């Protein structure tokens, strides 16, 4: 019994410290890369702006699987009792969506595409933790990269 409590506390503390360190590091990297890929525009629109340029199309995707730590999962269980916003899961999904979009934009940037049309998200809970709580989520972002024909000679 005492042994179980000790394991629980160790996991809580380790989960909190390592988990929040990883989250802060991830957010720093997201913000930095969002600035880097600002010139790639990703929109949900299906219409091409009428600028007269000719494009070729290519499907681009970005996916990521992110997991919550033990401490946040425990917090979410508590929230489930009292209701209200579960901020720990909100930040998990926010990170996953932004990361997926960034990976998609990186693929588009590698194709020298300035524009990604018809962006769609797909979210799936891939790994259930113990009980019914979400262990981790996978987010896929995909869209059609418009590659200007002039820069297409090298490809």
């Amino acid at each position, binding site marked *: 019994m005492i042994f179980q409590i000790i394991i629980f506390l160790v996991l809580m503390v380790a989960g909190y410290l390592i988990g929040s360190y*990883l989250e802060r590091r991830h957010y720093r990297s997201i913000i930095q890369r969002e600035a880097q890929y600002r010139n790639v525009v990703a929109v949900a629109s299906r219409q091409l702006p009428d600028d007269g340029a000719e494009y070729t199309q290519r*499907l681009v995707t970005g996916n990521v699987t992110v*997991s919550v730590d*033990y401490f946040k999962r425990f917090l979410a269980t508590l929230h489930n009792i009292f209701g209200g916003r579960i901020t720990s899961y909100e930040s998990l999904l926010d990170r996953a969506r932004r990361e997926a979009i960034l990976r998609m934009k990186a693929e588009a940037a590698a194709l020298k595409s300035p524009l990604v049309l018809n962006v*769609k998200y797909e979210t799936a809970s891939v*790994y259930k933790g113990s009980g019914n709580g979400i*262990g981790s989520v996978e987010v*896929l972002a*995909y869209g*059609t990269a418009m590659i200007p024909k002039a820069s297409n000679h090298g490809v």
Partner: protein
Amino acid sequence: MAERPGSEFMLISNLEVIPDRRVVKHLGLVQGSSVRAKHVGRDIMASIKNLFGGELVGYTELLSESREEAMERLTAQATAVGANAVLNVRFSTSSVAQGAAEIYVYGTAVILE
């Protein structure tokens, strides 16, 4: 997923209408699916990482590999019906068991002029 083998002439897009190109013929729905699981070592690694949070690289790889395989099957089917493009492509994911996921890709095979 940028360079898929055998897809050099197959235009795959999730747009319904490709700007400046007319659809000559519709050939119906084509699809590709793939169910994959990782070996136990990866699953154990993932459950450890699940305690501390962060990205589960093994699962990210697993899902993008199976998505690539599903896309290859979609492309093969589209080639078989004589299409040169697949439009309005959608992805769908469902987890069929612990540590395994089904990836499903579908779209409309067409001939563009």
